C-alpha cells in the first residue's frame, strides 16, 4: 500500500492548484482553531472607537467594519469555524451512512437493492437546496438542524456513487474468486469491494464539502443556521444587503469571497485527488459512465 500511497501523494503534490487548495484549507483550519488568539477584535462586539461601515483599508480595521461597526476581519476569522463545521461534518456523516447503504444495495441488488435505491429516487425528485431549506425550516433555526438537513440531502447522491461503483466491482472476477473460496458476504463487501469504492467516494465527498459550504451559506441567507450574533459568512453577506443599496458593497463582498475561496479550495482538492488516483481509477470512471445513465455529478 505504501508505494501506491506515495505515488498518489506525489501526483497530488505536483498539482499546484490542489496543493494550494490544501494549504488554504489547512490555513483556515488554523484560523478556526485559534480564532480567539488571531482575531484582532471580539467579533460580536463593536470595538471601542470604531464607527459603522468603515471602508476596507482603515487603520486598525483592514477589512473595514460592518453596519453595526463590528470588525469584518475578526468576523471572517471566526466565521471559518461554522463554515468548516457545516462543510465537513455533514459530508462525513452522510458518507458513512451512504457507504453502508450503497455497498449493500450494489452488492445484493435484488429486493434490498431496489428498496434502497428506489427510496433514494424519491429524494432525487426534490431539488437539494429546497429540501434542505424545508427540513431546516421545520426543525427550526440552529447549526445542528442545518447539519441534520444537509446529511439527509447528501445521502442520496453519495449512495448512488457508492452503489454504481459497488455494482461494477461486484461483477469483477476477484469477487467471484473470493466467493469461490466461500468467503462471507460481509467480508467481501467491506474488505474486498469497499477499498475499491472508497477513492471515488473520497473525491466526491471533497467536492461535496465545497458545495455544502455554498448551500449552508444559502440557508444562512434565509435566516436558518447559526443565529446572530455568532459570526457566519452567509449571514454576514446577507445582512450586508441592507447597506448594499446605499453603495456599501464590501460588507457583502468580503464574506462572499471567503465562501468562494474555501469552497473553491475544496473543489481543487477534489480535482487533484481525482487525478492523483492512478490511471486505473480513471478508466474505472469511464466504465462507470456507461453503467449509470444519470451522472451523479449533479451538484446542488
Amino acid at each position, binding site marked *: 500500500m505504501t508505494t501506491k500511497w506515495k505515488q498518489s501523494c506525489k501526483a497530488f503534490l505536483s498539482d499546484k492548484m490542489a496543493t494550494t487548495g490544501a494549504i488554504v484549507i489547512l490555513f483556515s483550519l488554523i484560523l478556526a482553531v485559534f480564532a480567539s488568539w488571531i482575531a484582532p477584535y471580539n467579533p460580536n462586539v463593536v470595538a471601542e472607537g470604531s464607527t459603522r461601515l468603515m471602508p476596507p483599508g482603515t487603520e486598525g480595521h483592514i477589512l473595514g467594519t460592518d453596519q453595526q461597526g463590528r470588525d469584518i476581519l475578526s468576523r471572517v476569522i471566526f466565521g471559518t469555524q461554522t463554515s468548516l463545521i457545516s462543510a465537513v461534518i455533514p459530508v462525513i456523516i452522510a458518507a458513512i451512512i451512504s457507504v453502508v447503504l450503497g455497498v449493500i444495495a450494489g452488492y445484493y441488488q435484488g429486493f434490498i437493492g431496489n428498496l434502497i435505491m428506489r427510496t433514494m429516487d424519491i429524494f432525487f*425528485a426534490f431539488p437539494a437546496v429546497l429540501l434542505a*431549506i424545508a427540513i431546516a425550516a*421545520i426543525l427550526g433555526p440552529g447549526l445542528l438542524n442545518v447539519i441534520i438537513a444537509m446529511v439527509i440531502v447528501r445521502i442520496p447522491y453519495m449512495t448512488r456513487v457508492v452503489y454504481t461503483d459497488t455494482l461494477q466491482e461486484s461483477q469483477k472476477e476477484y469477487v467471484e474468486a473470493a466467493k469461490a473460496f466461500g468467503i462471507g458476504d460481509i467480508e467481501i463487501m467491506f474488505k474486498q469491494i469497499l477499498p475499491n469504492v472508497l477513492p471515488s467516494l473520497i473525491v466526491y465527498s471533497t467536492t461535496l464539502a465545497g458545495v455544502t459550504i455554498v448551500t449552508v451559506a444559502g440557508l444562512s*441567507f434565509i435566516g436558518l443556521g447559526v443565529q446572530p450574533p455568532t459570526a457566519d459568512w452567509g449571514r454576514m*453577506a446577507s445582512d450586508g*444587503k441592507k447597506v448594499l443599496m446605499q453603495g456599501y458593497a464590501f460588507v457583502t463582498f468580503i464574506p462572499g469571497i471567503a*465562501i468562494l475561496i474555501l*469552497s*473553491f479550495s475544496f473543489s481543487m482538492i477534489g480535482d487533484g485527488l481525482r487525478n492523483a488516483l492512478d490511471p486505473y481509477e480513471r478508466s474505472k470512471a469511464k466504465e462507470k459512465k456507461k453503467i449509470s445513465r444519470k451522472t451523479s455529478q449533479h451538484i446542488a
Partner: protein
Amino acid sequence: MLRYVLSRILSTIPVLFGVTIVVFLLIQLIPGDPAKSILGADATPEAVEELRNNMGLNEPLIVQYGAWLSQLLQGDLGYSYTLHTPIIEELMPRFVNSLILTVASMLICVTLGVILGLISALKKGSFFDKASMGVALIGASMPVFWIALMLMWLFSIKLNIFPVSGMYNMRNPGGFMDLLHHIVLPAFATATVSLAVIARLTRSTVIDILQKDYVNYFHSFGLSKSKINIVHVMRNSLPPIINISGLQVGYIMGGALFSEVVFNWPGIGQALYVAVTSNDYPTIQAGILLIALTFVVVNLVVDLLNVWLSPRLQDSIKAE
C-alpha cells in the same frame, strides 16, 4: 413506443407517491406540538386542543395522510397559516412567474455552458480551455444569493443598466421587452452555477467521445475534421448533455429562490422564503411539493428524449 411512453409515465406514480409521503412527513418533523407552536406560547390549552382537532392531529398518522392526500388530489393544498387564504390561489400565479425565470435561466446556462464546454474540449489544453474551466470552477463555488447581490450592486446600483427588482416596471408596466429588461439579472444569477457545471461536464463528455473508436475510424478515411466533429462527436455528446441539463433544472429551481428573494421576483421561491420566516408550514409543504412534481415531470421528459435519441435504447425497450 407509445406503450413505452405510457408505461414510463405510469412508472412515475410510485415516485410521486413517495414524494407525497416525504412532504407529508416533513410536517411531522416539527419539534413539539405544531398547534402550540402556531398559536404561540401563551395559548390556552382549550384553544390548542381545538386547533389540534381542526388540524386532525389527534387522528392516527395514516388517517391524517389519507385525508391530506385526498385533499391534494382534489387540488386543495390547504390554507396558509399567515395569509389565511387557500395556498393554491397564492402559489399558482407565482408558479408561472417562477417557470418564466427557470426557462430563462436554463436558456442561458445550456447555450453558454455547451458552447464553452465544446470549445474547451476541442481546444483541450489551450489557454482558452484552462481559463474557461478555471472560471467555471470559480462560478460553481459561489452562493446564488451572493452572485445576485453582486450583480445587483454592479448593474443596478453602480451602472444603473438593469432594474433593481420586480418583474415589470411598477409605474409603466410594459410588455415582453419590459420583462426581458427585468429578467436579465435574476436569470444570470440563477444560471451561473449550472452554467459552470454544464460547461465542465460538456467538456468531459466531448473529450470522451473524441476518443471513441468510431471517431478515430472516420478520421482514418480522411474526412474533414469539422464535419466529423459536427456529425459524430456532437451527435453522440447530445444524450449526456441533455441528461446533465435536465438535472440542472432542479438546481435552477432551487437557486431561483435566492434570486427571487434578492430581486423581489414574485415567484414561488419568494413565497417559500416568506413562509420559512413566518413558520407557515403548509405553504412550505405545498411549495416544495409543487416544485418536486415539476422536477419529476422534467426528469420524465429528459428520459423520453434520451430514448428518442438513442436507437439502442429504443430497441432494448421494444425487446422487453
